[in-house]
């Protein structure tokens, strides 16, 4: 099978490469169709052909109220996603550090996180309003109950990423810092966390995008004012114009900006590290020197 002669590839390579290309087309093709269709002319419909080209459907989205409160829900979704991002990063990193040691109940917390990850979203959404609204007489709101419900989805991802990140972490850097008599706090601040930064950015990416696009867990926990995915959901049943596609294009564009920022900064950090290493200095060692200077 693996005839590792360079230049000559087995027939299976071409077969699999074709399969892969078709899969990528399947993955992206339909999405591109709606991005293109969102620029339909004013008289255009939900399918091809294009009847001219215009930005009318984008204007319709943000201009009038007839498609719902897009502007408000967009703002709420962004604010909520930023809150989820911050909390997911802080809580996951702390929990990741905790799981480096044995503690009573670690298995329970781990399995609760996994159960929360695979729990059908609507069931989480179902329990919270019964508990908070019916039994405790509290109001559901996007920045309270929906925030909590979304965290039950983003935190397990954050925790698993932190596990992966700590698995690959070379403890020698940490021990070196302790040997140089850095305190625990200094060791984490100047050595461990900077080394883990790419992984932490990954956690942030998951926190933001999963919250920004979250639908089933938010559905019954959101209270009186909707987030963007809920507006989109309402539109799928009410709106039969390309405005729906325009909203899809806008929301995907936001996701792509966030993905690019996150992946770009990870790549930048890795490249800087590579340069450091080539200079004969490892990133960790220079951080330890910094920790020394700080003392």
């Amino acid at each position, binding site marked *: *099978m*693996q005839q590792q002669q360079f230049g000559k590839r087995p027939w*299976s390579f071409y077969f*699999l490469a074709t*399969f*892969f290309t078709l*899969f990528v087309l*399947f*993955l992206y093709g339909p*999405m591109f*169709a*709606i991005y293109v*269709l969102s620029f339909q002319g004013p008289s255009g419909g*939900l*399918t*091809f052909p294009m009847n001219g080209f215009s930005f009318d459907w984008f204007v319709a989205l943000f201009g009038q109220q007839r498609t719902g409160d897009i502007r408000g829900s967009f703002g709420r979704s962004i604010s909520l996603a930023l809150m989820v991002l911050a909390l997911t990063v802080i809580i*996951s990193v*702390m*929990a990741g550090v*905790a*799981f480096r*040691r044995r*503690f009573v109940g*670690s298995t329970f*917390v781990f399995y*609760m*996180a996994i*159960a*929360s990850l*695979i*729990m*059908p979203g*609507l*069931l989480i959404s*179902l*329990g*919270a309003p*019964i*508990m908070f609204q*019916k*039994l405790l007489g509290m109001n559901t709101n996007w920045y309270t*109950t929906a925030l909590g419900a979304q*965290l*039950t989805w983003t*935190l397990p991802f954050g925790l698993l990423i932190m*596990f992966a990140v700590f*698995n690959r972490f070379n403890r020698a850097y940490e021990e070196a810092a302790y040997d140089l008599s850095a305190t625990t706090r200094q060791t984490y601040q100047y050595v461990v966390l900077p080394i883990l930064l790419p992984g932490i950015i990954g956690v942030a990416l*998951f926190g933001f*995008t999963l919250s920004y*696009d979250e*639908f*089933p867990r938010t559905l019954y926990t959101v209270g009186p004012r909707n987030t963007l995915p809920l507006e*989109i959901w309402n539109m*799928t049943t009410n709106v039969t114009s390309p405005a729906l596609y325009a*909203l*899809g294009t806008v*929301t*995907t564009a936001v996701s792509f900006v*966030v*993905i690019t920022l996150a992946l770009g900064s990870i790549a930048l950090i890795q490249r800087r590290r590579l340069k450091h290493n080539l200079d004969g200095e490892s990133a960790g060692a220079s951080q330890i020197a910094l920790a020394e200077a700080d003392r």
Partner: protein
Amino acid sequence: MQSRFSRLAPYLQVAPLALVLLVFFGIPLLVVGAVSFFEYDEFDIYPAFTFANYLDLWSQTTLNLYWQTITYAVIVWAITLVIGFTVAYFLVFHVRNILWQMALFLLCTVPFWTSNIIRMISWIPVLGRNGIINQSLVGLGIIDQPLEFLLFSDVAVVIAYVHLFTLFMIVPIFNSMARIDRSLIEAAVDGGASSWRVIWEVVVPLSKTGIALGSIFVLTLVMGDFFVVKIMSGGQSGSVVSALYNEIAVLQYPPAAASAVVLLIIVTMMVAGILRIVDVRKELAG
């Protein structure tokens, strides 16, 4: 003092996570369990201990719903497994340049970070009566009439599921495969094994944690879905959770809760069955 703090440290560090999961996941779930025994009428729910909600589930309609949901889950699982394994295998064993490997892997995972609803909707202009596929087929003269079964049908539901969830199969299988020691494969080849035998007897067994994880994700995602089946079937098919959605819409919490509990038991049994075959925790927590 220092040592007492350091003994307490893990508990303090894990406390926020445990608290959020308890308040917004654990306890609400117990509440759902309790409410499933409540009585209800058109106006409100009343604390009680009745099995009526569970007994009501035992009807032909509900059994059909469960059957339909499990059928979707198994079909989608089989398709995503084949695609996921093939794509991961290609990326790990056929793409030699590590940068290309990462780039192509990212290409597969980027849609995960975009909206599921939008990705689902994007099939409408492709599969619709006047959609891309029908227009092309009619234009080429292959068919006279547009195919009606493409959109708002079981076919559309399965296509949308595969589109949304294959990622969850690719990523864990890719991770497992990437860790396979290449010398094992060389040894198998040197021992005279054919390509198929290497895949079947070396690659598959060594990727089984990834396959198990991917299977858990895909099965639970399909079993828990309601919006894909609602939109893409055009209301012609249902699933357990889409029926639940309808019950919640009319505030019938107790029967919805009973249905949720039964679904959870089935899903837990599926996951436990997979975990019995493969120890996933070792893989995740290292």
